[in-house]
């Protein structure tokens, strides 16, 4: 029998490398362990090698170097039809000549299950497609086609389900709805999902673990909270949400163990950053602070934060969004930073442009990054 009946286990990529025949290296010595049953997201900008990685796992692209294992079983060079892996393709790739039910039973039939009627019924119910069973793919809406692609892969109960931007073709509203749906289905079936996306919000809301990929490498891997609050590179800091990066110079260390902090001089003000959030050994660094962690208060009124506050900043732009307000603030040294403020009503209005403000943040939220890295790396153009 095929590998599809093999034992399950973690998906392990070891030194996985892909060089295309034209010499382009799309994936560079990737090491990754994806625990069995987890919802794993591979997040990165367009062209960073996400699809290439998935295609190697599915067996649709040759591996240049390295290996792929599921549990103890090596599948690096196994034929695609012998792997316990299924894919939900970026463009769905539904069979246009078959009905929805036939599309869904395609996999089981090839594996020698004569009459997979019951499991087809079950999976169509799970993906809410029962009504569409006898229609052809072209008669369905985008969201329905997406669910057919999912059902067609899920019915095989693969060890690993690969999803290549499965929601990319849907409009925003449907995409949000399908994210919830997909998460529900994953929890229900308990299979390992590897979800590729370039939408950071999608990756963060759905996945247990997110790997941020850039130019064929994994930049950082972790739980969404960890990635967001403690990014290791400017690329990750900018690609996941927004970040203010301010030049600083390390002036000393205090404390030890979990309480150790690094003192960083920032244009005359000394900020303390937890040692676990310092990701450079150099003297110079980027102090990173998320815009929603930045607190501002008109000059002279007290600010609700421990530690030092920076005087002498000026509001240069106010953009009212309803639920929150984005302030752009010019710091005394000329750099503009961003502050997102929840409109709790506490302030009883907006701070007008031109107001002098004090700026502060809770020291535990700041992080320090390598100043050799590009402060603009990974900035996503709003679309």
């Amino acid at each position: 029998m095929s590998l599809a009946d093999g034992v399950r286990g973690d998906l392990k990529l070891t030194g996985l490398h892909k060089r295309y025949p034209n010499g382009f290296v799309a994936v560079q010595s990737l090491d990754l362990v994806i625990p069995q049953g987890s919802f794993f997201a591979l997040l990165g900008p367009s062209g960073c090698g996400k699809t290439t990685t998935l295609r190697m796992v599915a067996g649709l692209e040759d591996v240049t170097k390295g290996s792929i294992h599921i549990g103890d079983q090596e599948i690096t060079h196994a034929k695609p039809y012998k792997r316990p892996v299924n894919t939900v393709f970026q463009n769905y790739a539904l069979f246009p000549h078959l009905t929805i039910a036939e599309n869904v039973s395609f996999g089981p039939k090839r594996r020698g299950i004569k009459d997979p009627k019951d499991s087809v019924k079950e999976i169509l119910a799970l993906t809410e497609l029962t009504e569409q069973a006898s229609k052809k793919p072209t008669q369905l809406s985008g969201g329905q086609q997406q669910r057919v692609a999912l059902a067609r892969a899920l019915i095989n109960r693969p060890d690993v389900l690969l999803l290549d931007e499965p929601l990319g073709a849907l409009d925003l509203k449907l995409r949000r709805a399908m994210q919830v749906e997909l998460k529900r289905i994953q929890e229900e079936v308990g299979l390992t999902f590897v979800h590729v996306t370039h939408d950071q919000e999608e990756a963060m809301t759905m996945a247990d673990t997110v790997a941020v990929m850039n130019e064929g490498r994994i930049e950082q891997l972790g739980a969404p909270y960890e990635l967001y609050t403690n990014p290791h590179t400017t690329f990750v800091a900018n690609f996941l949400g927004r970040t203010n990066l301010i030049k600083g110079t390390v002036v000393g260390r205090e404390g030890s163990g979990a309480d150790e902090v690094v003192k960083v001089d920032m244009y005359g003000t000394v900020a303390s950053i937890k040692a676990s959030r310092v990701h450079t050994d150099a003297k110079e660094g980027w102090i990173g602070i998320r815009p929603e962690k930045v607190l501002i208060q008109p000059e002279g009124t007290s600010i609700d934060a421990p530690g030092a506050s920076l005087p002498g900043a000026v509001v240069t732009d106010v953009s009212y969004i309803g639920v929150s307000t984005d302030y752009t603030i010019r710091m005394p040294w000329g750099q503009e930073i961003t502050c997102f403020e929840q409109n709790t009503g506490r302030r009883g209005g907006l701070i007008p442009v031109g107001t002098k403000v004090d700026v502060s943040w809770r020291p535990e939220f700041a992080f320090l990054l390598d100043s050799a890295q590009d402060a603009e790396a990974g900035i996503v153009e709003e679309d």
Partner: protein
Amino acid sequence: MEALQRVFGKNSAYWLIGPAAVWLAVFFAFPMLSLLSTSLSDPSGSPIYGYTMTWELQNYVEAVGDYWPYMVRSLWYAGIATLLCLILGYTLAYAIAFKAGRWKNVMLVLVVAPFFTSFLVRTLSWKLILADNGWLVESLKWLHVLGEDGRLLATPFAVIMGLTYNFLPFMILPLYTSLEKIDPRLNEAAADLYSTPWQRFTKVIWPLSLPGVVGGTLLTFIPASGDYINSDLLGNPNTQMVGNKIQTLFTDASDYPHAAALSVILMVLIVGMVLFYVRRAGTEDLL
């Protein structure tokens, strides 16, 4: 559209089909009626003094009685040639559509290249190639593939080969068009869903290429079963097809009524077979 409506009035759609209707009347309906009336005319007339239409159904009875073996041979030869074209054409069209890469256009030009010279000249050149003392026959004799007095020219083999050769492009082009439209990612999806290469072909590629298969076989089979040039140039009296008979009846015997009756029978037969075939292939909506 509005401009058209101003010129032609509200029912401009009817005006637009006008040219097509005239074309069909002049070039299809009129000759067809003329053929039908000739086939039912008294055979004692002559092409010079004309025929009188007398509902002479006897012409049909005689045409079937005298010439049915030619009919059967035509369908048989055309059938084999179509099958050979399908096998050769499918492989080539598949290669061009999926494997040719940047050679695609060059290969397509090569497929239609034979059309740059006349059908007749090309068939005549096969006559030279297959000739009894030509290099091909000599080599085959030397290799003991052919016996001492074996020959290629003037055999059923030569006729079927000629038909296959001449109609192959008509098979390849529709097949290519259909195959080229198939998204190669469907093949990958099938591989991902546990299909071996053979299953990918039978379950995905073949069904999706059916419109091309139906189109190609029709474009090959229909003209091949009415052909007489190949049998004339490459065959012998025992390989004569119905086309040869119709031709001799029209030209040598000047027996227009029987020739017309035979033509009508061939036409009805082919239309009947095509309808049956298209139904069976389940591709009415794809045609």
